[in-house]
C-alpha cells in the first residue's frame, strides 16, 4: 500500500508577498475561519479542492504554486 502523501503549502510566504496579508484577511477572502488558515499553514489540515482553488485564486497563482506534494506518489 502506498504511503499517504504529505501536502505542504506556501500560504505563509504568499501572504507576505501580497502586502503582508494577515491570516484574518485571507480567511475572509476565502470564506473560512482564521483557525482554518492557521491549521493550513501549520500543515495540520489538507483543504478540499474547492478551498485550494479559492486560496490560489486569491493570490492570483495556480493551485500547484500554493500546494505541493511531498513523499511517494500514488501508483509509484
Amino acid at each position, binding site marked *: 500500500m502506498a504511503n499517504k502523501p504529505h501536502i505542504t503549502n506556501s500560504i505563509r510566504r504568499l501572504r507576505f508577498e501580497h502586502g503582508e496579508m*494577515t*491570516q484574518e484577511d485571507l480567511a475572509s477572502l476565502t*470564506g*473560512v*475561519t482564521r*483557525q*482554518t488558515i*492557521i*491549521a493550513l*499553514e*501549520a*500543515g*495540520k*489540515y489538507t*483543504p*478540499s479542492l474547492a*478551498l485550494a482553488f479559492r486560496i490560489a485564486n486569491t493570490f492570483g497563482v495556480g493551485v500547484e504554486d500554493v500546494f505541493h506534494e511531498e513523499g511517494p506518489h500514488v501508483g509509484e
Partner: protein
Amino acid sequence: MTRNEKIAWFNLAVAAVAVVFYIALFAFATIWIPKMPLGPRISFSFAAFAVVGICGLTDVIFRKEPGDERDALIERRATFGAHMLFWLYFVGFAMSVWGVHMYRGLETVSIHVLPLFVGSGFVLVVTIRSVIVLVLYRKAIDAGAEV
C-alpha cells in the same frame, strides 16, 4: 474561540454538572434514606441526568456563525469518535452485566441498571465529543497562530 468550541465547553460543563448532581443525589439517598436499597437509589439518582437535556438548547443559546469545511470535518470526526467509544462502552457494559449475572446465576437484569446504562452512555457521548472537538481545534492553534 469558534462557536463549536464554545458549545463543546458548554456541553462539558453540563456533563460535569450532571455527574456531580448524580453523585449528590446518590449521597443524599444513601445518607437521608438509609433504608432505600441500592437499586432504587440508582434509579432515584438517575433524575440528575435530566440536566444533560440542556445540551439540546445550544442552538438557541449560541448565536449562529458561519462555519467552514474544517469546522464540519471536526464535528464529523468528534461525532464519529464519540459514537465509536459509546459502542465500546455499550458492549463492555452489556458483557459486564452478563458476566455478573452468569456468575450469580441470575436470568433477568434489574430495571434499576438500565436507566443508568442509557444515562451514563449519553453523558459519555456528550463528554467525549466535546473533548475531541476541543483537542482538534487546540492542535492547530498550538501549531502556529499569529497574534
